[in-house]
């Protein structure tokens, strides 16, 4: 029995509230707990487990592309574990990687990438679907 439920029953016993009011308060307390549990479970459910990259040919594709298919499924745990490896990268190697990325127009420091940022990115990816339609094939990137 939670503290709130106990307080409600004590108030009922002391005559401060009526039975109907106590019943309503108890149902509110129960639904409040149910909502928080639901929110927790939905938050935990919202983190996708796999990243999918699917390339499929279209019905009218050229003969070269007709039989080309790619199906890649990457667990996000693997991506997170790989991102943690950047912490082990020697400083000289990290500088070279950052310099190469800067040359390509990405001013991004690999070593400042935090695990919490990756978690938020992964949760946000659940609602992201990338679909690329070409004449011969469709490319889908999504997370589930």
């Amino acid at each position, binding site marked *: 029995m939670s503290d709130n439920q106990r307080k409600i029953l004590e108030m009922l016993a002391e005559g401060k509230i009526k039975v109907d009011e106590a019943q309503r308060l108890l149902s509110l307390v129960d639904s409040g707990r149910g909502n928080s549990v639901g929110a927790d479970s939905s938050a935990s459910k919202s983190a996708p487990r796999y990243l999918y990259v699917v390339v499929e040919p279209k019905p009218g594709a050229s003969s070269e592309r007709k*039989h080309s298919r790619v*199906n*890649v499924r990457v*667990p996000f745990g*693997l991506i997170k574990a790989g991102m*943690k*490896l950047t912490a082990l990268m020697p400083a000289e190697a990290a500088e070279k990687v950052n310099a190469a990325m800067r040359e390509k127009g990405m001013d991004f420091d690999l070593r400042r990438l935090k695990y919490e940022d990756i978690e938020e990115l992964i949760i946000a990816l659940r609602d992201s679907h990338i679909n690329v339609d070409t004449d011969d094939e469709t490319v889908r990137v999504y997370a589930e």
Partner: protein
Amino acid sequence: MKRPPYLLKLRFRDSRHSFGLWLPLFILGPVFLVFLLALCLIVLPFVFLSLLFTWRWGWWRPVFLSVPAFLRIVCSLPGFKIDVRDNGRQFAIIFF
């Protein structure tokens, strides 16, 4: 709780050949670990000696930290799948 993969499926196929393999990693893994342990025991005195002389250079830290990182990667492999097909050729690798 994450676990290492217990099965690996490999498949190669082209117009003339077809090759499929199911590797029981739950058997091969422990065998490999025993072999690795034996190798470590042989190499251990030399490792200690090199630790003694190179500790202050500081590059042992990434070596030690890479072991749990490698284990994390291995335990994240279940579910990893690559399946590429192109004009009758196929390459697939799936971890269960």
